[in-house]
């Protein structure tokens, strides 16, 4: 069963997203939370990398983290926005959680 990776750091701040993408297996889920949601936004230098990752992974972003940062209307097409109930469901759907800090 596949792993749910969470990334809570902005890709501009730390390499956590990069490390995650470099080893997350095909079929694993990637959930962006806290400052990690900036990676889910359009037009950044990381957007192409995230779009590429979406070919082999489902990418999600936490709704309240997007809203509080004023970027909920800038989400890359195809990134699934979930609330905390959705976050919980994802942790149940995938077999375990790897928290990239």
């Amino acid at each position, binding site marked *: 069963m*596949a*792993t749910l990776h969470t990334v809570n750091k902005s890709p501009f701040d730390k*390499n956590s997203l990069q*490390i995650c993408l*470099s*080893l*997350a*297996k095909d079929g*694993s889920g990637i959930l962006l939370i806290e400052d990690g949601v900036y990676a889910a936004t359009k037009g950044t230098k990381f957007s192409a990398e995230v779009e590429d990752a979406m070919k082999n992974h489902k990418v999600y972003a936490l709704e309240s983290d997007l809203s509080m940062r004023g970027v909920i209307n800038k989400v890359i097409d195809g990134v699934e926005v979930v609330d905390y109930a959705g976050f919980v469901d994802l942790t149940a759907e995938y077999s*375990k*959680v*790897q*928290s*990239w*800090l």
Partner: protein
Amino acid sequence: MSSIKKLMYVNRKAPHGTVYALESLEVVLIGAAFDQDISLAFIDDGVYQIVKGQDPTDTGIKNFAPTYKALGDYDVKKMYVDKESLEERGLTQDDLMDLVWEDEDDDWAEKPSIHLVSRSELGDLLDDSDVLFNF
């Protein structure tokens, strides 16, 4: 009898600049008593936790690096080091402490605990674990 779980402790931070390396090692030591299948992963600056020659003398900061050497005695013998993280930092396995364990099924032969792995292998190791602790 409950089944054994595969616990992995993921270390990505350098020692001393923050407390995470020390406090994660404390978890490993306590966790060793629970007879589970234990692995450690060292990625990014986490590889610096096990370099040779750390010397915080005169700083008052605890020198906990020698504790990694004792892990073999606690049956903690799977330490996976991300090759790419080493290379990025100009390090080779020679820069790392010589961490070993004694195999009682092989006449107590000393065997290396450190295994250098690729990103892909690391991904497999994470996926193969049951519980992932990140510090």
